[in-house]
C-alpha cells in the first residue's frame, strides 16, 4: 500500500480486516486478514472503496444540509421565515423535496437529443464528486494525495462546462441554448483568473499536493495571498453560477437557462450538483487559503472540526453574497474577468515569484524553505499591494456611461441617442 493512507482510521480498519499482516506487520499488528495471501491489493482497493462511499454519501447529505441552510438563511436575509414545517426548523425539507422530485413526471421534449439530455445530470454530479478525491478533510483523512492535486481540482471541476453546453444543446430550446452560450463564455473567461490565482499558492508551498499546501501554511495563505484568495473566491463563485454571476440561468431573462427543459429526478440531480459544488468550493477555499485542518491548537485531534468551521464560514459567505448582490450584465461580467481579475492575477504571480525567489532561494540556507517570519514579511508587502492594485484597476475599468436625457421633439419619433461605452 501507499504510505499515504496509513494513518486513516477507516482505511486501517478495513485494510487490516481484509488484508491482514501480509506486508504491513507494523500497521495491522500481525493479525491475519480474511483474504488469502497475494490479495493485498484487493484489501487496498476495498479499503479505498469504503472511503469513497463515505465521501459520496457525505457530499450528498452535505448538499441536502446546504439546501436547507441556504433556504433558511436566505429567508432570514429577506425577513421571511423559510421552510419550518417538516421536521424541527424544517431540516427535513430537502428530503421532502427530493421525494417529490423523484415521483414527478420526467418530461423529455420530443425534439431533444435523448442520450445527451440524459447524460447531463450524470456528468455534472460525477465531475463534482470526483473533485472531492484530493480534498484533505483532516490530518490523513483523504482518498488520494496526488502530487498534482491543485491541477486535478481545476481540471475536474471544469468538466461542468461541457455538461452545461450539452444541456443547452440537447434541450433543443432557444433559451437553454442562450443560457449555455452565455454560460460557456463566462465559465471559460473565469477559468483563467481562477487557475492563475492558485499559482501563487503553489509557488509558496512548492508543491501542488493539497496535503503539502496545508502543511506549508504556517500562517493562513489568505493573509499572505490576499489577491489570490479574492480572485479565487470570485472565480469559483462564477464557476458555480452563483448569484452575481448567474446569467446562464437568469430566471427573469431566459426562463431557467440551460436547465429549462429538465424536470423530475434530472432536475434534482442538477440542483444537487450545484449545491454540493458550493460545499466543494468552500472546502477548496478553506484548504488552499485558510489552512485546512490545521488550527491554532489541537490540529491533529480536532482537524476535522477546524476544517468544518472554515468550510462553514465560506458557505455562509457564499449565501451572504447571493442574498446581497444583484445579477451582473454579460458585458460587465466579461469586463470584470478580462480587465480586472486577469491583470490582478498576473500581478500576484509576478510579485509572489520575486518574493519566493528572494526569501526562498536568495536568502535561505535551504533552497525552497520559507519560514514563518518571511511569510509575515510577504503578507506585510502583499496586503497594501492588493489594496493599491484593486483601487488602481477598479478605476481603470470603471464603466463610463453617458446617456443623454431623451428630448421631446414634436410628433416625430424620438431618435435613439443613448450610447453606452
Amino acid at each position: 500500500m501507499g504510505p499515504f493512507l496509513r494513518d486513516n482510521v477507516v482505511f486501517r480498519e478495513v485494510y487490516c480486516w481484509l488484508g491482514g499482516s501480509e506486508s504491513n506487520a507494523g500497521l495491522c499488528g500481525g493479525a491475519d486478514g480474511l483474504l488469502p495471501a497475494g490479495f493485498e491489493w484487493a484489501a487496498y482497493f476495498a479499503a479505498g472503496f469504503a472511503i469513497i462511499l463515505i465521501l459520496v454519501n457525505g457530499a450528498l447529505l452535505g448538499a441536502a444540509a446546504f439546501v436547507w441552510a441556504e433556504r433558511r438563511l436566505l429567508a432570514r436575509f429577506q425577513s421571511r421565515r423559510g421552510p419550518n414545517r417538516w421536521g424541527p426548523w424544517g431540516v427535513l425539507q430537502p428530503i421532502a423535496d427530493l421525494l417529490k422530485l423523484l415521483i414527478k413526471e420526467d418530461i423529455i421534449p420530443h425534439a431533444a437529443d435523448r442520450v445527451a439530455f440524459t447524460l447531463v445530470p450524470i456528468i455534472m454530479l460525477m465531475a463534482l464528486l470526483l473533485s472531492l478525491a484530493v480534498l484533505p478533510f483532516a490530518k490523513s483523512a483523504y482518498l488520494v494525495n496526488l502530487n498534482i492535486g491543485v491541477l486535478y481540482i481545476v481540471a475536474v471541476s471544469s468538466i461542468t462546462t461541457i455538461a452545461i453546453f450539452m444541456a443547452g444543446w440537447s434541450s433543443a430550446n432557444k433559451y437553454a441554448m442562450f443560457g449555455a452560450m452565455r454560460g460557456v463564455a463566462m465559465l471559460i473567461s473565469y477559468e483563467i483568473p481562477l487557475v492563475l490565482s492558485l499559482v501563487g499558492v503553489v509557488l509558496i508551498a512548492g508543491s501542488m499536493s493539497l496535503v503539502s499546501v496545508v502543511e506549508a501554511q504556517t500562517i493562513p495563505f489568505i493573509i499572505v495571498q490576499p489577491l489570490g484568495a479574492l480572485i479565487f473566491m470570485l472565480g469559483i463563485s462564477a464557476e458555480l453560477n452563483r448569484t452575481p454571476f448567474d446569467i446562464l440561468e437568469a430566471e427573469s431573462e431566459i426562463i431557467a437557462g440551460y436547465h429549462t427543459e429538465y424536470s423530475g429526478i434530472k432536475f434534482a440531480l442538477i440542483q444537487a450538483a450545484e449545491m454540493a459544488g458550493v460545499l466543494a468550493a468552500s472546502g477548496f477555499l478553506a484548504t488552499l487559503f485558510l489552512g485546512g485542518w490545521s488550527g491554532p491548537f489541537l490540529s491533529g485531534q480536532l482537524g476535522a472540526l477546524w476544517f468544518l468551521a472554515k468550510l462553514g464560514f465560506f458557505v455562509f459567505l457564499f449565501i451572504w453574497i447571493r442574498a446581497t448582490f444583484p445579477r451582473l450584465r454579460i458585458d460587465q461580467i466579461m469586463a470584470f474577468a478580462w480587465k480586472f481579475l486577469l491583470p490582478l492575477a498576473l500581478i500576484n504571480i509576478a510579485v509572489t515569484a520575486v518574493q519566493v525567489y528572494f526569501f526562498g532561494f536568495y536568502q535561505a540556507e535551504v533552497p525552497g524553505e520559507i519560514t514563518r517570519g518571511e511569510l509575515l514579511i510577504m503578507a506585510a508587502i502583499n496586503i497594501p499591494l492588493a489594496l493599491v492594485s484593486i483601487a488602481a484597476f477598479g478605476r481603470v475599468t470603471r464603466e463610463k456611461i453617458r446617456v443623454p436625457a431623451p428630448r421631446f421633439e414634436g410628433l416625430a419619433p424620438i431618435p435613439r441617442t443613448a450610447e453606452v461605452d
Partner: protein
Amino acid sequence: MLEDYFRQYGLIAVFTLVAFIVPTSLLALSFLLSRLGVRPQKPNPVKQEIYECGMETIGGRWAQFNFRYYMYALLFVIFDVAVVFLYPWAVRMGKLGLFALIQMAAFLTILGFAWVYAWRKRDLEWR
C-alpha cells in the same frame, strides 16, 4: 514509487465508477418507479413541446449568436496554454532560482503585450 502512482490513480478510477453509478442508479430508480406506477408517465404532444412560456415555438434551437463568443474562446485558448507552462514552473521556482524567474518574467511580459493589444483592439469588450 510507480506502484503508489498506479494505486492512487486506481482509486480515482474506482471513484469515477462510483460517481457514475450513483446518479445513474437514481435515474434508474425513477424509471423503475414509473414502471411500478408510483410516478406518472403520460407523454402527449403538447406536453413534449419545447417550453417557451406557453407560446408556440418559433424556429429551431439555432438562433443567431454574437460573434463575441468566438473571440472569448480564442483568448481563452491563448491564456490557458500559458497556465500549462506556469504550473510546473511554480512548483520548481523555489529551487531553480534566478534563471527560472527571468525566463518566466520574459514569458509573462510577452503575454502581457498580447493582453494589452487585445484591450487596445477592444476585443475584451462586449460590443
